Every structure is written in C-alpha cells, then in structure tokens.
C-alpha cells in the first residue's frame, strides 16, 4: 500500500488555480520530494494532504484513509512541519516539546528512540527559548516536535528555506536517518540541488507536475547535448553567443555557463569554432551531465 496516494487533485483560490490536477503516489518507506519554486502549489497540496484544507476536486488517501472523510485517522498518524517553523518563541525547547507531546497525548521520554539523535544535538540548550535559537537549531526543534508522537508519515513543507547550505545538508542527513526507521516522508523544497537526496521527486511548476521520477531518471530523460562553457567574462560570452544557430538555451550556472544544443550530434569543437569567430575570449568548453535545474529549465522553456 502506498503511504500517500494523490489522484487528480485540484484546488483554486478565487481566480488562482493553485493546484491543477496533480496525481502521484508516495510509496511506503519512501522519501519523496515535491520540488518547485514558490507559488508552484506545493504548500496548498501539502495542506490538503495533512487535512487542513479540502480539495475542490480529485481525491487523496494518506495511510489508506481519505483526506476528507478519514481526516481523524490521518491526524493521528502524520507528523507535520509547516513552512514557518511553528514554534512558540517565548517557550523553551523543553517547554515546546512537552506541549506538543501533551497535545498528541504522549510524553517526550517515550519517543526518544525516534528523535533521540536529533534531540541530543539541541538538548544542551533545552532551557533556551525558541526565539533565541539559530535557524538550524529551530529547524531541529521543529523536526523533533513533528516527530514527537512517532508518526507513520512525516510531511514537511519547505523545511530548508532560508537556512544555510550546511544546515540544509545536515537536515537532509536527519531525514535519511528517519527514513531508515520505516517512516515515509513527503518533503517540499524550492532548492533543486536537494532533489538528489530524495528517492523520487515530482517537479512542480504553476500548480502542475511537470516531471515525476527518480532524480536519476529525470536527468536521464534530458534529451539534448549540454556543455559547460567558460570565458574570461561569462556575461559577455553569453551575450555574444545567444544568437548561435542550433542553440536551445544558454544561461549562467556556477563557474561554467550551461549551453544546450538542439542537434544530438553536436560536438564541442563546432561551438568552440563558432565562439572563436565571435569573440576574443579565451574559451573552455566540455560536455557535461545535466542537473535537475537544467531539466527544470528545459521543461519550462520547451516542455
């Protein structure tokens, strides 16, 4: 049985269609990523799945129960971490946790096996108020609070937004650890580089799923030759090459700009020759493997 089954869910707010006909499954024990920019409909979909909102049409099941009729069951078995870390800023780490433990009818001590490793990292500061914690520590505390009743399914809405790269990495390590204990996880994020940490991902854009596969599968489907190119000044280089025949797209991406061509048999020599005629820059170019962002951009531009 799938942990979460989403079947043709749609939801509008006035004129805005936040979620358009989304369907996917999160398998039991899977770490599933909902990846897309702000406004793609991730939060709305998550609110429907955690039974905070009702869909306009379509249906969804969480742990086998319908999100509309079976919401009572679902509320007992999911852990949910909303977009903003939902913590009481004026309560200490300990007080926040015992409050959430209490409303879920459990005690902190009983749940140590699941969140023990994470809790250990913040335990030395347990008397400190949540408002005085760093972003990374708040994130850990919020995760502890979401795990406090030992949920079967964990749903996290943008847990890494606004958090630095190191804390983000640590957070994903924690998620992998939680997953190992048999908990299914649905997580949303706007950071495409986090896709690789998921078992499977759905790329979402403007309320629709534009790709659904393993991260590797999505990259494998990228059907065009892609090159990394670098000059003395990448901005000028991009300007100079943007009218090259057969060019599909060209955009900055880290140290090397990414250059995607239409022709499957495109060689880097040809590009180099074209560029040499156009510019006086010293150019480095080599074929590279597309990343998730390249795939996302390709689907946005030509999908």
């Amino acid at each position, binding site marked *: 049985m799938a942990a979460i089954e989403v079947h043709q869910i749609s939801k509008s707010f006035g004129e805005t269609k936040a979620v358009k006909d989304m369907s996917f499954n999160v398998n039991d024990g899977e770490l599933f990523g909902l990846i897309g920019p702000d406004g793609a409909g991730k939060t709305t979909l998550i609110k429907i799945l955690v039974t905070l909102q009702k869909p306009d049409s379509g249906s969804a099941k969480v742990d086998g129960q319908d999100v509309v009729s079976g919401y009572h069951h679902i509320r007992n078995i999911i852990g949910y971490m909303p977009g903003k870390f939902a913590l009481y800023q004026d309560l200490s780490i300990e007080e926040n946790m015992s409050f959430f433990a209490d409303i879920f009818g459990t005690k902190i001590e009983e749940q140590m096996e699941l969140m023990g490793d994470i809790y250990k990292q913040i335990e030395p500061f347990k008397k400190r108020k949540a408002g005085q914690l760093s972003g990374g520590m708040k994130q850990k505390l919020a995760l502890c609070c979401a795990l406090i009743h030992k949920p079967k399914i964990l749903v996290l809405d943008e847990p890494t937004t606004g958090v*630095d*790269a190191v*804390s983000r990495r640590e957070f994903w390590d924690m998620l992998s650890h939680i997953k190992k204990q048999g908990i299914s996880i649905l997580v949303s994020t706007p950071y495409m580089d986090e896709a690789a940490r998921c078992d499977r991902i759905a790329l979402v854009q403007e309320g629709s799923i534009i790709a659904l596969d393993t991260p590797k599968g999505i990259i494998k489907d990228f059907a065009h030759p892609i090159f990394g190119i670098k000059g003395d000044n*990448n901005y000028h280089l991009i300007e100079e090459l943007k009218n090259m025949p057969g060019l599909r797209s060209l*955009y900055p991406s880290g*140290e090397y700009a990414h250059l995607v061509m239409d022709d499957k048999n495109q060689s880097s020599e040809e590009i180099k020759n074209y560029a040499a005629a156009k510019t006086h820059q010293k150019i480095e170019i080599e074929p590279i493997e597309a990343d998730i962002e390249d795939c996302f951009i390709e689907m946005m531009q030509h999908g």
Partner: protein
Amino acid sequence: MDNQENIAVKTNKLTRKFGDFIATDELTLEVKKGEIFGFLGANGAGKTTAMRMLCGLLKPSSGEATVAGFDVYKQAEKIKKNIGYMSQKFSLYEDLKVKENIELYGGIYGLSRKEIKEKTKHIIDDLNMKSVENKLVAEIPLGWKQKLAFSVAQIHDPKIIFLDEPTGGVDPLTRRQFWNGIYASADRGLTIFVTTHYMDEAEYCNRVSIMVDGKVKALGTPRALKDEYKVGSMDDVFTELARGTSTK
C-alpha cells in the same frame, strides 16, 4: 595597490558587539568598483550585522569602514544616498501598484517629478511590464517582483547595491535571468554586494568571502578558493569551512 577611486567598499577591523556577543569580528575586506562580491556565511555568522553597518543602519563598535568613499561613522546619510538595497521580502509594497512603487521610491530618494516620470517609463519599458503597470505588486509573479525590486533599488543611480538573499524561492530560469540582470548592472560599473544561500550563485561572483562566527574565514575568487581547499564546488568549500561550527 588600487587607488581609492576604484574601491567601492573598504573595511578595516570592523567590529560590532551586542553585549558580550561579538556579531562581526574584525571584518577586513575591499570590494572593487564594478565587482560582484559574494558575501557568504551560515545563519547567524554575522552577515546581516556587517551588511547593516555598511548600509549606515548600525553603528560599528570599533574599526573603520568606508562605503562609496563615505565614512560609516560620520557620513551615514551620504552612504544611504549612494547605495541601493534589496531583499526578497521587504523591498516592495504589495498593496501598491507597480507604477506606484516606482514613483514612491523615486520620491523617497528625492528625484524630481520629471526624473520620476522618466525613470518610471524607463523601468517599465526595460522590464516589459507595460501590461502590469497598474496591477498591485501582490498580483504579479514572484520573479517579476524580484526584477522590479532590483530596478527600483537602482532608481537613484547608486554606486553600490546590496542584495540580501535576492533569489530565494524562485524558479531556476527566473533565477538565472535575475543573475543576468546583475551581470548587466555590474557591466555598467555598478558594484554588487550580495548574500545568498545558493552555492552555485557563489560561483557567479567575481570574489566571495565566507564568514564563520563573525570572522571572515576565506576570501578570494571562487576558482582560487576551490583550488585552495582542493574541492570541486563552492558548496564543498562552504561545507568545509562552516562545518563544526553550525552543529553546536
């Protein structure tokens, strides 16, 4: 040594304490005119404090700094006139129209009526926003808001622009378009001082600094830093430096 003319931001042992806590500890760096300078660091590493001092919003505890040639202690007002500031969250008024936002900022920076009119037209044409000029900012897509905020932050032709996590949460294509805009501005001689959590964006910068616990732990071109730490990406450099401190 570059002559002073070519230096946009210069700090020497710039320090800010809050009680016993040293938020920014002897920050020393130079940003050249027309440079894209990436100001990186983990949450709570002291970036925001340093940035606020450079913008003339916060008095340093000790040390020196000049921004656009003006002293942060004595000439904060002059600094404010010569810098632009943009953060993703606070730059535009959501309940004002696109046009009204541009006019508002023009007014705030003391542009004449005629200049405001010209600038407004220029920005709207430049961004292709004629169709939405009378829409509320709340109604336009995030990527557009960002481009608009970036243009508005330059309405008074500042010498330096401070960008505080300008690209959070936007799609990859818009993010790249936005960076293209940054490049274009830098190409015209504008100095860009930018913070970001996207490590690939760190690679777009001419030079970056990485702050850890209030101190600059690394400073150089992305290439040089990667070579120094013998890793393949800025992400790895960052992790290498910031790890150990953020886990506590």
